[in-house]
């Protein structure tokens, strides 16, 4: 893994002032890195724009002001950040366990499909039951889809990098089959599912915007998985397996089981993201429901240094980039594909800065 920064919980009874100071320094360092990385990437993007006849500075200022201009825009960003945070948080857990789950995209689809099947099935159910049911269905389906790769890794030592990529394709093709076939809305010729029942819709929390309870769930889960990873026995086991599987065995930790736990958590989170997309945003299943959230989630986790709390912010940042890129195209007709260039550059500069920090730290030892 790139640079597993170590979470070092401090005992409550040691020097409180010193702890507070060092905590502040650590937080400042943790924030400075991604911010610097994003700035560098934006500057590179700006240069690329300028070289091709755009005014990079203006484009970005429009983008930033535009996406944050009013409640609705901000709500839209938060809405976009839901799947990114969920997937990012899940991948933090997987990556901490050294599992390269590249398959969040497919797991998202699995979750979306399950949420759709459940979401159109039970007429007359109260939302108090239906909404959680849809979430659970999505999460379980995502976890199960990821679990296939987990089982193949544990029992056949099949590289999860390859299997999760393959499972992505299979999930996408499967969804395409379902929306053109068994799940197609009988009332329409289009390859889309029937609309989910109203009781299964995710309640909106800031009408008239589309922001729904998913954002609260995502933040709560991010905090929960932070506690899981760094404060719980189970999370400790996952991390030890990720760093040194032999040491884990020696410690009596069941490596296979923890691989399954970590990959299923990441898959479950992606599946939940899929459920939120259909039940909270589109309300129908389409064959292309995700614009690549699963791949973006990898960058979200990385930018957060595999820290679930950090993923809240990096997920938010990527949502801004994404919203901004749409706005950039609307107002300035800058091709939206530029956003993947900027994302790529964000990753590379995070890596470069991260290594720099790592090196300077080891020098001071």
């Amino acid at each position: 893994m790139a640079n597993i920064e170590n979470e070092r919980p401090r005992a409550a009874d040691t020097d409180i002032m010193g702890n507070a100071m060092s905590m502040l320094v650590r937080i400042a360092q943790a924030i400075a890195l991604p911010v610097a990385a994003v700035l560098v990437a934006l500057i590179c993007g700006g240069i690329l724009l300028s070289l091709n006849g755009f005014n990079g500075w203006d484009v970005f200022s429009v983008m930033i002001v535009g996406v944050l201009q009013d409640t609705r825009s901000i709500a839209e960003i938060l809405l976009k950040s839901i799947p990114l945070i969920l997937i990012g948080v899940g991948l933090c857990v997987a990556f901490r366990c050294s599992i390269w789950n590249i398959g969040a995209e497919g797991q998202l689809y699995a979750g979306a499909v399950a949420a759709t099947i459940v979401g159109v099935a039970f007429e007359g159910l109260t939302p108090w039951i239906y909404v959680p049911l849809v979430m659970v269905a999505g999460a379980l389906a995502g976890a199960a889809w990821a679990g296939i790769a987990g089982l193949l890794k544990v029992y056949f030592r099949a590289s999860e990098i390859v299997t999760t990529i393959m499972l992505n394709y299979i999930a996408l093709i499967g969804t395409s089959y379902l929306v053109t076939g068994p799940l197609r809305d009988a009332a329409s010729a289009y390859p889309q599912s029937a609309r989910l029942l109203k009781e299964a819709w995710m309640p909106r929390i800031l009408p008239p915007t589309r922001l729904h309870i998913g954002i609260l769930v995502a933040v709560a889960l991010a905090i929960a998985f932070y506690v899981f990873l760094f404060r719980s026995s189970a999370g400790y086991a996952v991390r030890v397996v990720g760093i040194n599987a032999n040491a884990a065995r020696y410690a009596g930790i069941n490596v296979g089981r923890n691989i399954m736990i970590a990959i299923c958590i990441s898959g479950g989170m992606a599946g939940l993201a899929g459920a939120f997309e259909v039940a909270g945003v589109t309300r129908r299943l389409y064959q292309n429901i995700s614009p690549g959230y699963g791949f973006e989630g990898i960058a979200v986790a990385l930018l957060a240094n595999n820290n679930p709390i950090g993923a809240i912010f990096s997920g938010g940042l990527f949502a801004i980039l994404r919203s901004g890129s749409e706005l950039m195209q609307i107002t300035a007709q800058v091709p939206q594909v530029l956003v993947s260039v900027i994302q790529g550059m964000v990753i590379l500069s995070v890596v470069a800065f991260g290594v720099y920090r790592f090196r300077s730290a080891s020098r001071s030892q």
Partner: protein
Amino acid sequence: MKFSRRTCLAALAGLTMAGATGPALADDFKMGLLVPGSVAEEGWNRIAYDALLRVEKELGADISYVELHENPSAFENAFRNYASQGYDVVLGHGFQFQDAALTVAADFPDTTFLISSSHVFDGNVIGLNTDSSEPFYLMGVIAAMTGKSAGLVGGLEIPPIKQSFEGFINGARSVDPNFPISQVYVGSFTDSTAAKEAAVGMIARGANIVVPNANAAGLGVVQAAREAGPDVQTFSVYSDYTEAAPENTLGVYVADYGQGIVRIVSQIKDGSFEAAGNIVFGLKDTDVMMFSYNDHSARSVPDDVRRKVEEVKNGIIAGEIATRAD
């Protein structure tokens, strides 16, 4: 594609003010476009983009477009962005935009939402349909009268493509009920390599007419026809790319969606637009849907066939021939 600081700041100001004071402020007539893929591709998305450019040129409208690659969750927001910035017309290019438009439309009664390939008609949300099954029906007739066997290569199995193939098959079968036709969906609008191999396979098994309906990937089909030599023919569909294989192109079906859009939008602009239902463009709209022959083809369509096709065409326009079920 120059983008100056001035227009940018103006747009920025417009944005902020639109946010504050609502759509009424804007003076100029503005049209926005949502496309589900890249406007750089030949085919579906390009048609809408060309239409938008014509609206700009002919009606002097301010225009803007946004590509929302396979991203249903962003549709509603994009509609709202445009509508709240005072755009008068927003075109969602594809049936998948329909739900989002319906949701937004109630909040913006002054904006007209046009949805391509949709039968929706609900207040200010109006479906626009280019019924490609009609020109494909003509292609089917030509294929059955001049060819041995035909192959159809589609991108994804979605209604516009399925309908066009249905038209082709019905047309061919109207001439020869046993005319062999095979179909392949390559599962992508970008994999021109797979589309080409699909066509090569069809040609090898005797098809001498191969027709794509797969946006950019369709170019692979044209390439296959061209490499197979003069015996194998294709059609240029939606836009005219005859030059990619001049000797292998029997005819050109151009959907001048732009013309249709310009017509509707100009009515909206001067207030004369009155919709009684969703709008369907067909062969009857001769300014929108054009079918022509390529005389440079190595197997140029003979006159007797052309006469027959003309008859069929008139039949379709008159409503005597149904090109597809429903």
